């Protein structure tokens, strides 16, 4: 298959895209767990996470088998998961960064 994502722990509800995965494409899931394929519902940039199932607002995002944050909106299976739909349970500031570039939006440049 052309597109691939890596799931590092079988209890994870996300996998990491090893290639760019365009919207509507099927990708191979390698690594742990039984799920072997997934269809994307939006573009997933390389290195970013894809939802492996539907995740409700306030539910935990799991990677490496540990909680890496929580959903700030309902997330559909196959979606791109990043700052726009999840946040840290510790770091407040990162929720204010630009989802694509990571640039800070809470500091004024005049």
């Amino acid at each position, binding site marked *: 298959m052309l597109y691939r994502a890596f799931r590092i722990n079988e209890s994870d509800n996300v996998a*990491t895209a090893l290639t760019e995965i365009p919207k509507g494409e099927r990708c191979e899931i390698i690594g742990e767990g039984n799920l072997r394929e997934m269809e994307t519902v939006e573009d997933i940039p390389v290195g970013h*996470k894809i939802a492996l199932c539907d995740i409700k607002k306030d539910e935990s995002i799991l990677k490496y088998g540990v909680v*890496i944050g929580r959903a700030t909106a309902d997330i559909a299976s196959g979606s791109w998961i990043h700052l726009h739909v999840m946040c840290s349970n510790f*770091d407040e*500031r990162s929720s204010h*960064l630009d989802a694509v570039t*990571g640039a800070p939006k809470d500091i004024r440049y005049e």
Partner: protein
Amino acid sequence: MKAEEITWLGFKRKNGSPGIRNRVLVIYTVKCSEFVARRIVELSGSPDVELIGFDGCTDNQYAVNMLISMIRHPNTGAVLSVGLGCEYIQPEWLSDIAEKEGKPNSWMFIQKEGGTNRTIEKGVSWVRETLAKLADTERVEMKLSDLVIGAECGGSDYTSGLAGNVVVGRFFDKLVELGGTAIFEEIVEAIGLGDLLEQRAANAEAAKEIKYTYEKALDYCKSVRQYSVSPGNFAGGLSTIEEKSMGAVIKSGTKKIEGVIKVSSPPKHPGLWLLDSTPDPYWMQFGITNPNDSEGLMDLISCGAHMVFLVTGRGNVVGSAVSPCIKITGNHATFERMSEDMEFDASPVLLGEKSIDETAEELMSYVSEIAGGKPSKSEAMGHKEFFIPYKYQEKEVAFIRACERKSD
């Protein structure tokens, strides 16, 4: 060959712990003597002669401890300290430490020697004589169980936590099983994983140290509202500090953690140790949540690491004085693009081409070659970076903050 059967010849040291290199350290004790010390290193014409130093002029216990740890380091064979003559740090006392370690040593003040050229000339001739002496250093058989290896990551991308650090973690498991010593650091990159780390403590005392150290880092991050993540990390797909933390902590493998050590304090016995390099409370205003990679490598070396791993997805070029540095990447494109600098490619794990176990075994045989004397890529290119900043740290985990302590 089985890992436990691999041997090579190391350098015998008076304090018992053998070295894998036999370096001559030229130490400047203030910025004013750096040029002269550097020229001595350059003119010696030997890759075994290396420069380290502290800019000063005011001294700092943390920096002095670090210089002492480099003198006592098993990879150090001889020491020349070069001072200007009016700074706080005393080159003669550094020489005394080397003497006690049974290492050839000398010291000079530039003001006393009569300036740049006279000092350089005297230094170069001492270094050349010493190199000849060091050729006769007694050799001793070493095994992987004799090694202390430190690991840190820098310039991380999504591959670091999925491949590079994962392979290092498995390597550490194997090293500890063989009876060796593994050190991992970056407690500020463990935010979100306090319970997980505490559960891995080897005993109650270790658990207490881990808890305190974790809370210290968390307090600090909270108070400055800044965690050890950067815009580049987010752009690369990491969404939270917890995600980055787990990718970083995975390099510690799965073994029990014997305790927390501080900079310049070698582990008390073999096994896996957490190095806390963050400043202690009250002095936290000098702290930074994101030290540069050379600082991290020096911290590990100050704890006696014979060799250090730098795991980097985006790529880096630094090496290190005193101990060879091996740069590991889980990003195949980075490995190809920076092939002269990147030393070990962990990406086959991500691509499903090789197992984690197989790749960790390969790393182990590579480590044996470097330990046996083969120069690492950074060593061969002359990368000898070092970084000794002003910092405030207690030598052991200090459960009472310095500012809260009653004065004597």
